């Protein structure tokens, strides 16, 4: 039954124009649009430094890493920032007078960005500060390891020296950490990552369509397959397998376009990129299954619900600018913890940036949990059963 359903499911999907558009064509179109819009931005905007202010209080003064980083970034002709060091009130005033794009204040060693709107300069600013944060975390960790080595050797004297050594190394790109300028990596890369995430989640439309065909309380053809002598599990696996196949094919097209056409960079850890793509697709397929079972509305209504959920997820995970992701991380971190698109985007991001696997593993495991939960809550509706009404 698996094979029979697999083959026919492929046909049913490939001949469904609406389905093919949303799952395969739409992400490709978006990728090209992004490329057009963003390549202009990069060439024109990157040359001009972003004017920001930094609140120069004790919190900042004690923060060696950021001090150095800001110093680096506001040096030379291709500098990223023009920085005014000032107090909080003045920074606020500068921002409201539109003298600066935004200002940064430190609390508990963490930078907090204040901006007034969501534009390209704001995106660059947020992106770069994020970079410093991410890298400083890695740096601290490396320094820590080194320190504990030293301490276990009974050497307590050169803590400061070790720390400086480490940050020096980090900035020079040793130990695999990249420097914090938009030269090295396009700040728009995250948009392409979220495009991959979107494509993964849109695969839900495949399972949504196919599962509807199997449920007697939803479609007429579902009644037919339910009264047949075919085992339901075989049919479900056949459909799911076919959906997975087509999804991976669509994703491959998108990767080819992004890598060879647009020259987006996904880092060098190919197995991890493949793994996160597989897990992301599984999350999309199971989300579609859950919506097919749980939303008791017409097929069109379900379609709309899924598209809305996916687009909202894209938006929250930073497709329309990384500033949004930051706002969410700051104000409602839970949202990105349960948003599979944030997990996929973040996973790709961490593959590119970090040597450490931890963040990637958290993302991967989150996706597995998300998929499992979605499938579990769908099971009840997919079982062969007598319905209350059909």
């Amino acid at each position, binding site marked *: 039954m698996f094979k029979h359903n697999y083959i026919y499911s492929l046909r049913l999907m490939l*001949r469904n124009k609406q389905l093919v558009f949303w799952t395969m064509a739409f992400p490709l179109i978006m990728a090209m649009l992004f490329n057009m819009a963003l390549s202009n931005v990069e060439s024109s905007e990157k040359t001009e430094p972003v004017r920001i202010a930094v609140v120069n209080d004790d919190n900042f003064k004690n923060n060696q890493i950021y001090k150095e980083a800001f110093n680096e970034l506001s040096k030379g002709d291709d500098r990223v920032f023009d920085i005014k060091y000032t107090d909080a009130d003045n920074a606020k005033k500068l921002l409201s007078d539109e003298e600066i794009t935004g200002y940064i204040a430190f609390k508990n060693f963490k930078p907090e960005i204040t901006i007034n709107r969501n534009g390209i300069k704001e995106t660059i600013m947020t992106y770069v500060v994020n970079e410093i944060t991410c890298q400083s975390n890695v740096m601290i960790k490396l320094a820590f390891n080194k320190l504990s080595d030293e301490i276990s050797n009974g050497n307590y004297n050169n803590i400061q020296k070790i720390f400086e050594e480490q940050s020096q190394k980090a900035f020079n790109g040793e130990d695999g950490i990249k420097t914090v300028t938009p030269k090295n990596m396009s700040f728009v890369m995250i948009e392409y990552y979220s495009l991959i995430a979107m494509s993964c989640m849109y695969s839900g439309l495949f399972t949504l369509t196919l599962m509807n065909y199997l449920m007697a309380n939803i479609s*007429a053809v579902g009644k037919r397959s*339910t*009264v*047949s*002598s075919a085992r339901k599990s075989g049919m479900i696996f056949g459909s799911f397998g076919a959906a997975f196949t087509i999804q991976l094919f669509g994703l491959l097209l998108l990767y080819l376009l992004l890598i060879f056409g647009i020259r987006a960079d996904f880092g060098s850890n190919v197995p991890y990129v493949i793994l996160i793509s597989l897990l992301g697709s599984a999350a999309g397929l199971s989300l579609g299954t859950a919506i097919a079972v749980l939303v008791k509305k017409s097929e069109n209504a379900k379609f709309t619900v899924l598209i809305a959920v996916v687009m909202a997820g894209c938006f929250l995970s930073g497709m329309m600018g990384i500033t949004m992701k930051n706002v969410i991380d700051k104000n409602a971190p839970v949202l990105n913890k349960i948003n599979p698109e944030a997990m996929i985007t973040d996973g790709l991001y961490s593959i590119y940036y970090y040597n450490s696997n931890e963040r990637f593993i958290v993302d991967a495991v989150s996706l597995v949990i998300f998929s499992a939960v979605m499938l579990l809550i769908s099971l009840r509706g997919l079982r*062969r059963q*007598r319905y209350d009404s059909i």
Partner: protein
Amino acid sequence: MSDKKVIEVKNLVKEYKELRAVDDISFDVYEKEIFGLLGPNGSGKSTTINSILSLLKYSSGNISIFGKEMTPDAYDIKRDIGVIFQDVAVFQELTVYENIDYFCGLYIRDKKQRKQCIEDAIELVSIGDYKKFYPKQLSGGLLRRLNIACGIAHKPKLIFLDEPTVAVDPQSRNSILEGIKKLRDDGATIVYTTHYMEEVEQICDRIIIIDKGKIIASGTRENLKKLAKIEERITVEIKKMDKEKLEGFKKLEKVTDVSYEGHTLVVSFSGGKNNIANMIDHLRNNNFSYRRVYSERPTLNDVFLELTGKELRD
């Protein structure tokens, strides 16, 4: 028809919140018969069928098919059942041939055997010219025929047809009814629901009539017709008629009812052998100027009218 029971339904009750859609129905279906379920819209025909098929949860009752209890995972029973649902159930994305192949493939794995089955089904409903068509390119009647082909291609021993001829032109309808008779002649048992009494009269061996979820009559066509108090009905086209003259017809032998409406006189008889001759004599003797005269046997509609006081089709 043999005396082997294929379906046994005992005291089936199905309640939707307020409504008793099926109200304590019991009946048996025998091997190789065409069993008719006749009833007006909303009488509970589809609900009964869907309960028998284990698609619907029913409130109480027992259902067995081929002597075994019917359940949602009774695969061995389901193997020998074919269902044609009231709503056309085909994939828009698949051609006529592919649709039949898909549904047939849910029962028959062997490709060669399946191919033969599909060809047979296509021939039975005569849609051979449309194999490569997509459903949206088919007329209503052809679509219904495809719907039937999808349900019977795997050569089931027991076939349910739920109003397969709704909204179908007379030519397609006749082709469908002939096909169903052929299936019966080839050895299948058939359960046929409809609200068209003509169809039931044309093909069913035994019939139950249901109304508001209850069986109000059952038996063979001839048995049922005895329930109608009339045996013959004579219709005459007459230009003019007055009350007094109308009364005159009631004096004829065995007359049970007389009515005149829109230039048409209808006289019902409860028996008698020479009704039409008597009628014509009466018309001549009273100098009526009349046109057409014709006589009919009672229909199941008369039975329904007799039992419920309303027409089968409102």
